[in-house]
C-alpha cells in the first residue's frame, strides 16, 4: 500500500528556534464568563460545538437556502509554517487539522497539529499572535492533530500530544501555566479541546491503543492546580470495579479524546469513553465499565453521577467518545447519541440520570440482535464476537457507522445531521499480547474491507427526525465522509469530510445541494459560523490526515485503487 510521505508532499518549513514574535496584543478582548458560555451571543462561537449542549447550530440567518449559492471567499490564511512534529523516522499518519474556528467578538482562535494556537481578526484574517507548545523530540504521535482551544475569562486552554494542558493569555499569547496530566512515554496523549465549566478546565486522555488507564481531569483555570482526576476505569473497590477481572483494570483503556458536553440544567459534564484495552473482550471478561459509555461528572468534584454503557465487553474498537447531543423536546430532557457501534440511542436525562428511551440502527450493523427495551443493553451474535484464537467478521468495521466528527442539531425542526460511513466491514482474531508501557496493546490486528455496495457509496450525510427517529433524507458520496457538520438557522447545513476536498452546503429540509467549492485540501475540521459588524461568516480549516488517511488506505487496498487526497492546511472564511 503506497502512501505519499507528507514530509515530501508539502513544503513544510522547520522552525529552528522560537516563533518570530510579531505579537500584537488584542485590544478590548471580551472576557468569557459562565453566563456567556451558557447563553452565547448569536454571532459568537465560544465552544467547540457553539453551545454546551453540543448542538453546533448557529442562530444566524443572513445566509439562507436562497442566497448561499452566492457565498464567496472573504479571506484565507495558511496555518503554516509548521514545526517538525517528531524526530521519528516516519509518522504513522499525516498530521491533520481538526479544530473549529472559535470566535469571541471578532477574535478568532485556531489550533494546528503541530500544537500552535493562532489568534486572528475574524473579519480580516490578520494575525494578532501565535503560540506554539514544544513537544519532546522523541515523541511519536499516532494521532498528530489538535481539536482546538477552550475559552474562559481572558485565557485559552489547549491539551497537547505530550499529555499536558497549557493555559495561554488570549490577549497576548503568553503562556500562563502548564499542567502535566500523565507521562506521555506510557502512551498517554491528548488531542481534544478542553471544556471549561465555572472555572474548572477539564481534559481527557488518548491512548486506549496503549493500555492506559483513562481519565478526565479538572484543573483550576487560574493556577493550573489539579482539582480532581476521575478514572474511566474503576479500581476494584470503586463502583463498577467488579466489572474487571484481576488486574485488567490497570491497563483497561477507556480513553477520553473528544470534548464533552455540559448539561447546564443538571450541572453535569458528559464525557464519552473509548474502547477497552486490549481490543478482544475475552481477555477481560465482564462489562468493563465505563468503557464504551457516557459518564456524567460533577465538574466541581469529578464525581461520576450517572452513566450509560452502549455495548459492554467491547470487541470491535468502537470508541464511544462523542458525547450525546442534548436537547429539550416536547418537554422531555433528552440526550441523543449516534453511537460508533451503528445504533442511535435516545436517552432521557431527567434530574441528571440517564435512562434508555429508544434506539435503532442508522447504518447496517450485524453484531446486535436487539437492544433490551428497558435498559438498551445489546445482545450479541456469537459469531460476530472475536476471541483469543477465534476469528470473527463484523459490520461496520472498527471505524464504526460514525467516528469522532460531530453531528449538528436544529432545535427548531428537531432534526439531527450526521456524517456516516457505510459499506465497510472488519475482521479480527485475538492473540495473547503482553503489556509494555508505551507499546501498542491491541490483542488483534486491524482488518477492514469495503463491501460490494461500497461501489455505490461509502460516505453519506444523514438527516434524522429526533421525535420519531426516522430518517428524513440521505445524501451519498462515493468517498468516505469524515466531516463534522454545521447547522444554521438560515436552513443551510455545511459539511466537508470527503477526499475530493469539497466543502458543501445542503438544504436542511430536503438535502438538496445548494453550493459547493473545491478546496485546497480535504476537510475534517468542524465548520463554524460567526458574525462581525452585522455580517455572517462561515469558517472552516482544511487539513486532511490521520484517520481519514488510514480509512482511505484500507478502502484503496480493498478496491485496488490509489487515492491521493490533497492535504491543505488553510483557514477559509466565506461570506455573501
Amino acid at each position, binding site marked *: 500500500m503506497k*502512501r505519499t510521505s507528507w514530509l515530501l508532499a508539502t513544503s513544510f518549513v522547520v522552525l529552528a528556534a522560537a516563533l518570530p514574535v510579531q505579537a500584537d496584543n488584542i485590544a478590548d478582548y471580551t472576557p468569557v464568563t459562565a453566563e456567556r458560555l451558557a447563553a452565547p451571543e448569536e454571532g459568537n462561537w465560544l465552544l467547540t460545538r457553539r453551545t454546551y449542549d453540543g448542538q453546533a447550530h448557529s442562530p444566524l440567518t443572513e445566509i439562507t437556502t436562497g442566497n448561499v449559492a452566492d457565498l464567496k471567499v472573504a479571506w484565507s490564511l495558511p496555518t503554516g509554517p509548521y514545526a517538525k512534529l517528531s524526530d521519528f523516522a516516519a509518522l504513522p499518519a499525516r498530521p491533520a487539522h481538526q479544530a473549529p474556528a472559535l470566535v469571541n467578538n471578532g477574535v478568532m482562535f485556531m489550533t494546528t497539529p503541530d500544537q500552535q494556537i493562532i489568534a486572528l481578526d475574524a473579519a480580516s484574517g490578520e494575525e494578532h499572535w501565535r503560540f506554539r507548545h514544544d513537544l519532546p523530540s522523541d515523541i511519536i504521535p499516532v494521532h498528530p492533530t489538535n481539536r482546538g482551544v477552550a475559552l474562559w475569562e481572558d485565557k485559552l486552554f489547549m491539551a497537547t500530544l505530550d499529555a499536558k494542558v497549557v493555559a495561554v493569555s488570549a490577549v497576548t499569547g503568553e503562556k500562563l501555566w502548564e499542567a502535566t496530566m500523565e507521562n506521555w512515554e506510557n502512551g498517554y496523549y491528548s488531542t481534544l479541546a478542553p471544556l471549561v465549566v465555572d472555572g474548572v478546565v477539564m481534559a481527557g486522555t488518548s491512548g486506549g491503543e496503549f493500555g492506559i488507564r483513562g481519565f478526565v481531569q479538572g484543573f483550576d483555570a487560574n493556577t493550573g492546580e489539579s482539582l480532581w482526576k476521575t478514572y474511566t476505569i474503576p479500581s476494584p473497590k470503586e463502583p463498577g470495579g467488579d466489572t474487571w477481572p484481576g488486574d485488567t483494570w490497570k491497563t483497561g483503556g477507556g480513553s477520553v479524546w473528544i470534548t464533552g458536553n455540559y448539561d447546564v440544567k443538571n450541572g453535569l459534564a458528559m464525557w464519552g469513553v473509548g474502547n477497552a484495552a486490549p481490543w478482544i473482550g475475552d481477555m477481560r471478561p465482564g462489562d468493563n465499565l465505563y468503557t464504551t459509555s457516557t459518564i456524567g461528572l460533577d465538574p466541581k468534584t469529578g464525581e461520576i453521577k450517572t452513566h450509560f454503557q452502549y455495548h459492554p465487553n467491547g470487541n470491535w474498537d468502537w470508541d464511544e467518545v462523542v458525547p450525546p447531543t442534548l436537547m429539550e423536546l416536547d418537554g422531555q430532557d433528552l440526550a441523543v447519541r449516534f453511537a460508533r457501534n451503528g445504533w442511535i440511542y435516545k436517552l432521557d436525562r431527567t434530574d441528571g440520570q440517564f435512562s434508555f428511551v429508544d434506539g435503532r440502527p442508522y447504518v447496517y450493523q450485524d453484531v446486535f440482535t436487539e437492544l433490551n427495551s428497558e435498559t438498551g443493553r445489546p445482545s450479541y451474535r456469537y459469531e460476530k464476537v472475536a476471541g483469543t484464537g477465534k476469528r470473527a467478521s463484523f459490520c461496520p468495521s472498527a471505524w464504526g457507522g460514525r467516528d469522532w466528527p460531530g453531528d449538528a442539531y436544529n432545535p427548531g425542526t428537531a432534526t439531527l445531521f450526521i456524517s456516516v460511513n457505510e459499506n465497510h466491514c472488519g475482521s479480527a482474531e485475538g492473540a495473547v499480547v*503482553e503489556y509494555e508501557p508505551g507499546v501498542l496493546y491491541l490483542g488483534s490486528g486491524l482488518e477492514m474491507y469495503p463491501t460490494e455496495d461500497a461501489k455505490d457509496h461509502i460516505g453519506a450525510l444523514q438527516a434524522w427526525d429526533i421525535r420519531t427517529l426516522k430518517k428524513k433524507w440521505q445524501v451519498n458520496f462515493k468517498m468516505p465522509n469524515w466531516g463534522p457538520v454545521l447547522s444554521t438557522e438560515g436552513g443551510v447545513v455545511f459539511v466537508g469530510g470527503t477526499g475530493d476536498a469539497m466543502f458543501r452546503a445542503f438544504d436542511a429540509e430536503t438535502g438538496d445541494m445548494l453550493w459547493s467549492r473545491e478546496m485546497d485540501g480535504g476537510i475534517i475540521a468542524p465548520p463554524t459560523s460567526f458574525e462581525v459588524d452585522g455580517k455572517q461568516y462561515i469558517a472552516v480549516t482544511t487539513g486532511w490526515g490521520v484517520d481519514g488517511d488510514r480509512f482511505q488506505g484500507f478502502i484503496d487496498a480493498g478496491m485496488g485503487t490509489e487515492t491521493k487526497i490533497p492535504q491543505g492546511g488553510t483557514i477559509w472564511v466565506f461570506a455573501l
Partner: protein
Amino acid sequence: MKTWSTALISAPALALSVGLAGLPQGGVAAENAPSGDVAIPAEVHAQGEKLYKKNCRFCHGTKGTSGKRLSGNKKLVDADYVAHVILVGPGYMTPFAEHLSDEEIALIVTYVRNAWGNAYGPVAAEDVAQLR
C-alpha cells in the same frame, strides 16, 4: 507482485550465515542476545537494536511480543519478506522506504531475525536495495 514463500532465503544472507556458523557470539545483553548458532557481530546487533527501539518498539514491543508478534514468528525466516514489510508498511504499519536507508533496514531486519529466540541469520544492505 512477488509472492512470499517461507522457504525463500536470500543467497548472500545464506552464504554469510553458513560461513559464520560455529563462531563465538559477541557480548551483548543476554535477554536480547542473538540466539542460536548464527553469529551476528555484537556491533551489528547493537546498532540494529538501537534502530529497532527508535522505530519499531512502540508497535512491536521491546521483546517483539506486541502488535504483529515478531518473537517466534516463523515468517522471519524469509529475509526479503521482512525487508519488504518494513519498506512498504502493510495494513496500518508505517511504510519506511523513504525514511530509512538500505543499511538501516538491513540492521533492523538482522536484529529482529536474531533476537528473542529467533535465529535466522543476517541481512545485507544490498539485499534490501534489490527490493526497492
